């Protein structure tokens, strides 16, 4: 099994990664900071389910 840093590096340097990240960042910037706050709210809600299956 690969070490986590290797997995992270492989994910971030994968050829497809920019195709996902760049449009996502552009969409977020265009949509405005309020939309980003909603994404963070969703993230917090999801993270509080840690340990739930």
């Amino acid at each position: 099994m690969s070490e986590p840093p290797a997995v992270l590096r492989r994910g971030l340097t994968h050829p497809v990664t920019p195709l996902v990240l760049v449009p996502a960042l552009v969409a977020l910037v265009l949509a405005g900071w309020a939309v980003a706050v909603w994404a963070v709210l969703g993230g917090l809600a999801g993270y509080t389910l840690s340990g739930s299956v």
Partner: protein
Amino acid sequence: MFGAVVSALVLFVLSGLATPEPEPVRHGLVVAVAVLCVLRDAGVVSFPLPQNARQVPQDVLRRDVARGALQFGFEMGTGVRTYVSSTVPYVLVVALLLTAPDAVTAVAAGVGFGLGRALTPTARYASGDGETWDAALHKHVHGIKVAAGLSVAAALAFLLFGTT
């Protein structure tokens, strides 16, 4: 993540039903629910909340691992085929229903929810010691829920009342 986005879009569609109510009333309700939910997670008040409380059956993974994993992730991501151990997701549902945001906002909240759920197994794996990570989570999970609930309540109050 796809499951969470689908749930968020369903809430977006249903949010149209709440729009006849005046905006200040709806926004006030959202913040009130957020505060109430923090009190519930803090153990100050106690009341039951609706939930399916059923896991995705394990046999979906036995039939076909790749397809089963996608199905497992989708169903779990919707938030209706899992145990909901925190009150914060309910706040998100109420906020999406009563604030009637646009579709982009609903999708952003859904994507965030999916990423938040994915953060747990990712962090556990990255820690390199799952059992120690589980023990640390068990020790801090109450504080995580209360802190997240407070952050969500404060962010909603600012979003709905601080920017107008």
